[in-house]
């Protein structure tokens, strides 16, 4: 199959305008004839649902949570980028585009990223109009702050709760459309299958998480905005219900998966403390503006931090990267922390942590200034760890945070299944091999508010859609196979809980396909995953019944998908023998241990096509063409 990215011709700056003109339109009076299913209500799904309903389409929106307002976009702290140049520092759409392509280590499509940068400004305007309480300067204008990977202040924020405020804005727009009759929301539903009829995505099968009933919904197109798969590591900053299930089921129905090995490990999270732990909490990247990262100079030094004199401390980031110091990008900072702990210089109970020390900043600026900047984060840290960062250095360690890979989409955000559109973190499109801070919110909202409303119209106007109801045989088949799958999970009645499998798989992925990867380790992981999967299907224990609220059953279904998906991630990581962004292959590094990209052999998107259970997926390549930026090796020394 030929992958057609459908990138419009012409100069980069004109592509989106030209494309919008060329896209066929659906007459306003005809829009109500089309029904659209949206799965997921994060920034992308909520904004898409609201915007599509505003245009007159009939929308059915599904979410796994008890209300659309709780999707995990809500946890984003730092902010959202836009090329407004309100700060007069020389920012521009072009600069935001360039920073994002470079930050992604030149593994994203130029045209998509440029469009994202173009739309960034409209997002801010729209959110302000919705009543999002962005931070403001004394004169009443919007405030900006700086973030990693940029030399201008272009990040808009609402305290440390930017994701929450943007999501509540999109949620309120969605609720307005519910009241107006344009959207019906189905909460507490989990997608079990995508229904494809005559090669077109035409519906879904979902499980009602309260009573266990399976429900069928037909539509003219399906929009998936179901987030990423960071929970493949079990311990991550993701919410418990964030999972790969929906996009993996779509993959099995023919949507190809792009760059599954591109995952982001965030450097500043609160370290784990023991077996019981279910979640790692992020501490905002902004802390690295004032905190100094260090470990004891000699391995096994278990003195308290305050008893370790200056000369016995290793400020390894400042040493190694004198020009960027503690503010190197996320992937670089994460790998460096791991390297220190691997050498036995880690601190804390588990020896898997490094210090982030504010004592110099407090001495320099005073406690009040630091409290004003970071007070809420310090409080959060203290609540979780019982230690005060004002008195003792914080302990931090990297954790899985975001996934750049996702379903492959063309410029219209349509997957390889016609009629299946994929938005936000669930697609692969804009962040390449590494996402910059404050870019995820931008992408989710750009996709939902400003891209899908146009491109879905182009699809409808140019496509024959046969009449279809949820009584069609395709729905019966999908329901049947979902029913069998559930029955199988319930019937094993073994001796191991689903959490114990999730934890084990997480360890395997973290150890062999985490911050640093090599061929031998990846191959070993493949075997370990296959063994674990066999045991899962022989020894899983799911309590209760399937006709009830049953968290264990929900998790078991997701874990079954994750156990298969993990293998795809490993295959992709094995195939990409270069290092780029968050994907560090030990075989591909410079003499001083930095990542070495291989543009000659790997300037492409790796795209995987499902070929059946137990069979190796087919590999496809979408070459990446760079006409507007010069490929360069990132250096932060």
């Amino acid at each position, binding site marked *: 199959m030929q992958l057609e990215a459908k990138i419009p011709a012409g100069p980069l700056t004109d592509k989106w305008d030209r494309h919008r003109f060329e896209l066929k339109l659906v007459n306003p009076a005809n829009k109500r004839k089309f029904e659209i299913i949206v799965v997921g209500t994060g920034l992308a799904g909520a904004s898409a649902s609201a915007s599509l309903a505003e245009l007159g389409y009939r929308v059915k929106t599904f979410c796994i949570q008890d209300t659309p307002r709780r999707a995990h976009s809500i946890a984003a702290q730092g902010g959202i980028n836009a090329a407004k140049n309100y700060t007069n520092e020389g920012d521009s759409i072009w600069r935001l585009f360039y920073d994002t392509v470079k930050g992604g280590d030149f593994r994203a499509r130029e045209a998509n990223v440029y469009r994202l940068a173009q739309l960034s400004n409209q997002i801010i305007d729209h959110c302000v*109009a919705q009543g999002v309480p*962005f931070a403001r300067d004394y004169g009443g204008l*919007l405030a900006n702050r700086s973030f990693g990977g940029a030399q201008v202040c272009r990040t808009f924020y609402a305290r440390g709760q930017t994701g929450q405020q943007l999501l509540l804005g999109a949620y*309120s727009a969605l609720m307005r459309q519910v009241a107006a009759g344009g959207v019906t929301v189905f909460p507490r539903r989990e997608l079990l299958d995508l229904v494809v009829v005559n090669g077109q995505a035409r519906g879904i099968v979902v499980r009602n998480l309260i009573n266990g009933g399976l429900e069928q919904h037909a539509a003219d197109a399906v929009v998936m905005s179901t987030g990423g798969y960071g929970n493949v590591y079990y311990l991550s900053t993701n919410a418990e219900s964030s999972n790969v299930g929906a996009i993996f089921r779509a993959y099995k129905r023919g949507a190809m998966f792009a760059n599954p090995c591109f995952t982001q490990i965030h450097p500043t999270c609160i370290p784990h403390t023991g077996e019981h732990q279910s979640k790692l909490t992020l501490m905002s990247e902004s802390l690295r503006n004032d905190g100094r990262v260090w470990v004891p100079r000699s391995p096994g030094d278990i003195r308290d931090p305050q008893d370790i004199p200056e000369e016995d401390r290793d400020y390894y980031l400042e040493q190694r990267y004198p020009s960027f110091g503690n503010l190197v990008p996320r992937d670089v900072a994460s790998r460096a922390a791991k390297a220190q702990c691997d050498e036995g210089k880690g601190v804390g109970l588990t020896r898997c942590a490094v210090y982030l020390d504010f004592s110099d900043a407090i001495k320099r600026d005073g406690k009040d200034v630091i409290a004003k900047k970071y007070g809420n984060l310090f409080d959060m840290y203290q609540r979780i760890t019982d230690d005060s960062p004002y008195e003792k250095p914080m302990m931090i360690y990297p954790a899985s945070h975001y996934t750049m890979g996702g379903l492959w989409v063309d410029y219209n955000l349509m997957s390889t299944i016609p009629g299946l559109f994929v938005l936000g973190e669930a697609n692969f499109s804009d962040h390449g091999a590494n996402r910059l801070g404050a870019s995820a919110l931008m992408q989710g909202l750009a996709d939902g508010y400003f891209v899908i409303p146009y491109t879905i119209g182009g699809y409808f106007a140019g496509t024959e859609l046969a009449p279809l109801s949820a009584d069609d045989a395709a729905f019966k088949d999908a329901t049947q196979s979902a029913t069998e799958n559930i029955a199988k999970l319930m019937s094993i009645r073994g001796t191991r809980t689903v959490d114990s499998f999730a934890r084990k798989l997480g360890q395997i992925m973290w150890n062999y396909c985490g911050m640093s990867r090599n061929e031998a380790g990846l191959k070993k992981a493949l075997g370990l995953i296959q063994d674990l999967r066999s045991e899962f299907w022989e020894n899983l224990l799911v309590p209760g019944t399937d006709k009830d609220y049953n968290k264990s059953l929900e998790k078991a279904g997701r874990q079954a998908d994750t156990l298969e998906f993990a293998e795809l991630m490993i295959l992709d990581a094995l195939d990409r023998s270069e290092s780029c962004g968050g994907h560090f292959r030990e075989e591909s590094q410079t003499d001083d241990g930095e990542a070495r990209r291989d543009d000659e052999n790997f300037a492409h998107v790796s795209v995987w096509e499902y070929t059946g259970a137990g069979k190796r997926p087919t590999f496809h390549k979408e070459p990446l063409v760079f006409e507007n930026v010069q490929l360069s090796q990132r250096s932060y020394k």
Partner: protein
Amino acid sequence: MKKLAKSINLTLKIWRQAGPEVKGHFETIAAENISVHMSFIEMLDTVNEQLTLDGKDPIAFDNDCREGICGTCGAVVDGRAHGPQKASTLCQLHMRQFSDGDTIVVEPFRARAFKVIKDLVVDRSPFDKIIQAGGYVSVNTGGAPDGNAIPIPQEIAEKAMDAAACIGCGACVAACPSASAMLFVSGKISQLALLPQGKPEAAGRALKMVRTMDKCGFGNCSNHRECENACPKELTIVNIARLNRQFFKASFFSDEI
């Protein structure tokens, strides 16, 4: 400084209810070997692992982000919504707040408007209905003016943000003797009434949201201030004062009905 991972043993008296129409009861369950570094949710996870292995039905509870922002989790712990720690959700409450040998009483968020679905899981969808009644600014995507077209004094933006911080968890309702949703409703009404973007629809919004709140079966504010005491995001009853002002203004001086 190296704290040993201390473990404690607890007795849970926890609410079990198989479904909305079934009578519930308290069940006594031992929670043993609980690390003090666990969150309350992780403690429940640990108990559930044991119940599962023992062939018993695990305790049903909602949770998602486990970092205090999504508003999914919540239970009344020893008589207090989200437990004894101030300004905290249940997932941010850590077991070091408890002592070895404690008995802890755990119940769902109770209110006429919140039906129990199972054990600690309740139906908070009335909150969505209240927002649908007017908790938004009626702008379609596409036509917004530049974000800086209307300056908003910093102080106003900060107050709006204080009000907007609500996570919709429902602790205010559970804590209120009359199970009122006034703190929840007032957060949204305040946020939008403070900002210029929300002013054109302020009158209708106040009337419709309050009316919907009543219809959903929530009680009225009785000035006990339990809501602000339980609120994990520390919304204050100043918001309720603003709501009342908006409501009276709309009732007496606007054409909205």
